[in-house]
């Protein structure tokens, strides 16, 4: 089922469908559960499903670009932090030496991390950077 702006806030209208990374619904994310060790920081992370739901809400509220960003984000949820920082670094001007280096990163995102939207986005950047000469060394 896709969500609309009338389902918002999702935490209030659909508390049982909003689940943490390890499948615990909001109602189980209590202080006592944290103190007993049953809930860890992993349970307090957003999921691709939640981002997809927020994308639905955003689109229904007339914000397609925001929805697209949430979908790109859904692609990144399971990507490890150091990989995210590596890709970000590579996208900064002058970090990648050439278009191929960015295309490789895109391929990794697509094949290893199952992040097709991010992969497309990086490929598009590779083309623009090439055209605008952004592969020149900066430091």
């Amino acid at each position, binding site marked *: 089922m896709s969500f609309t702006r009338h389902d918002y806030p999702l935490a209030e209208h659909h508390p049982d469908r909003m689940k943490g990374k390890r499948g615990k619904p909001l109602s189980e994310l209590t202080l006592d559960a944290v103190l007993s060790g049953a809930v860890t920081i992993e349970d307090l992370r957003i999921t691709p499903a939640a981002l997809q739901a927020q994308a639905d809400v955003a689109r229904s509220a007339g914000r397609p670009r925001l929805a697209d960003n949430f979908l790109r984000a*859904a692609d990144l949820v399971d990507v490890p932090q150091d990989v*995210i920082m590596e890709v970000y670094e590579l996208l900064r001007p002058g970090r990648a030496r050439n278009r191929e280096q960015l295309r490789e990163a895109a391929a990794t995102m697509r094949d290893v991390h199952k992040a097709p939207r991010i992969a497309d986005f990086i490929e598009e950047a590779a083309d623009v950077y090439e055209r605008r000469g952004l592969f020149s060394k900066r430091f």
Partner: protein
Amino acid sequence: MDKPTPNRWKRFTDWDERPLRLDKFAAEDWKHGFSAFSSPADPKPAVKIEGGKVVSLDGVLEHDFDMIDRFIATYHLDPDIVPEAMAMDSAEVARMLVDMHVPREKLVRLAHGMTPAKLADVVSRLNALEIAFAYSKMRARKTPGNQGHVTNAKDDPLQLAADAATAVALGFDEVETTMRVARNAWSNAVACAIGAAVGRWGTLFQCSSEEAEELRIGMAGFTSYAETVSVYGTEKTFVDGDDTPWSKAFLAAAYASRGIKMRCTSGAGSELLMGFHESKSMLYLEARCLCLQRGMGVQGTQNGGIDGAPVTATVPGGMREMMAENLLAVWLDLECASGNDARPTESEIRVGAKIMPYLIAGSDLICSGMGSILKYDNSFNPSLINGEELEDYLILQRDFEADGGLSPVPEGQALEVRSRAVEALAAVYEELGLATATPDMKVSVVVASGSDETRSFTPRDVALISEEIKARSITVIDVIKALASRGYREEAENLLNVVKLRVSGDYLQTSAVVRNGHVVSAVNDPNDYQGPGSGYRLSEDRRREMLGIRDVLDQKEVLRSEALHQHDESRNIDYKTLGEAKPSDDTKDVVIGISPGFGLKLFQTTAGHRLSDVLSVMVEAVKARGLTPRIVRFRHTADTSFLGLSAARLAGSGVGIGIQSKGTAVIHQKDRLPHNNLELFSNAPITRIEHYRGMGANAAAYALGEMPEPVVVPTRGEAMGARYHARVAMIYAIETEMTAEGASPVEVSVTFKGARS
């Protein structure tokens, strides 16, 4: 200063001394980037679409697109709307922005089809008032809010916790910290997260640091939003800022993937300061930034000059430009944290003028942010409004009944939350084996206005603590556990609730804040302004909160303070009533007419002189000329002029003094019209005892047929009305209540008992 300068009107010298003259002003010079609204180098609005694809944008062919053009063409412009929107007359669209009958949604849709040049062309047609009005209509969330800075010059975590808790009590929806020393980021984050959990939950928190570090701190759960993702309006500036639209858009997705709210930052003047403005106007460049941001899919922006605000304010129309770029942001349906931060002036008048349109129009976050701490403690740089002036802002809210997002905090509550935050932080640091705060450290922080007054952790202590938090990978879960195990269960719950926000991601939607435990955003609280009676209105409860400023005077308070003086006066003077006062024929006789409550219900002048002293010096001065002072109490009037004239008409000399309890007095003569007196002493708050003595002496002189030098009460232009009129009106009401139509005057015999002060 000492030597008079010939050929110069000295007023200019006076003006030279005012804080305003510390501000520098720049000549309009579009070639060098000093142009607010338009430049000959700005392109004419135009788009060409072929096969559903943008092939030229604002005069640039696709082949020549720089990366910003490319991004805007791909991600901002909606080819289905472009033909309709671009064909519209800009003046007509400008009128639609201020037409309350044109719904916000219709304008937001049109903006999706407009190029940066078109958007800038439209808003540049609005004057400042129209921009403010359009802003009020177009902003995304209905309920206004505010953001505060919480930093200090020592990066002292105890003070950060205390100040974060205070900011929460004041009502800030978001608090933002940064450090003097980069490696202190982790300590700052923990301290503010704990402080912001005191009192209630829901204040969002940001720790502004290096991009990668900021994301890591967010991942550890300490922060809930980020806003230092800067974008720029020219390609070269963007590259010097070490990013591209793609790298920033990637970062935007990364923040969302971690369940962290994010907005971008842009603003007039950044391209100018960074040297690559391409001779374009500030507004046009900012329009590019904002189209870019919408295209990136960020929920909001922090704009309105921001770090470029001071340079923007040097240009003609600079302040209007900052309003215009905020309008562009909300027209593009972005959350707007509307600047009003980096202090653009030393002039308090310019500060007040800058904030007013936002306070009245409302904004998602009026300041981004306001200095909740003192200027010297602000590690971002001083804000437009700071801890020093914060109370002025609270009064402005009350003056205009405009919701600026804050509420006054009573002194007791301030101490309570500060102390709770300091104790909670100290407990957590101890529990986690990070540091021990001594009682003296804690006490010094709780009461300190700023870091100059604290005896707390040294910057070296803080660096060690911060590095340990990072090295041991301490997360918000560890902090929550430590809080709970040390008895701060409420704070533990509050902190957990903020972290839980990221599970559903509701607060990632446009303009989201947390109010009373609920996420409120442009989705469930959309701005529905359609004229008077619609849009955001103050509720009775909210109004009452805003009115709760300190030291408010009422009549009970006035009577209470008078009662304190009653006892004192009873030892100084006796008033004995002798019966009805009659006109006399004795030419030596000067009447001092006192008001109905004089010495009965009211006992001191507004300057704080005892009425017994005032009366005594006047009596002495009249006697000194060999004349006879008669004291008469009038009960038919409390008005100075009529007291004076009535007194003169009873006096054999034809000269009388009229004096009210508050000390306002007049010398009158029996043949004059009521308001055409001999001498008037209307500035009671600055009228001193020697002036009253002079008044007695002059009354005597007039009675003797002399023409004395009038007594002058010198004023230095104090705002007497502001200082005294509330009290004066209440005192006067007490006197007028005591008057009775046609009541006859009473002869009073006065005995001075005490030594005069």
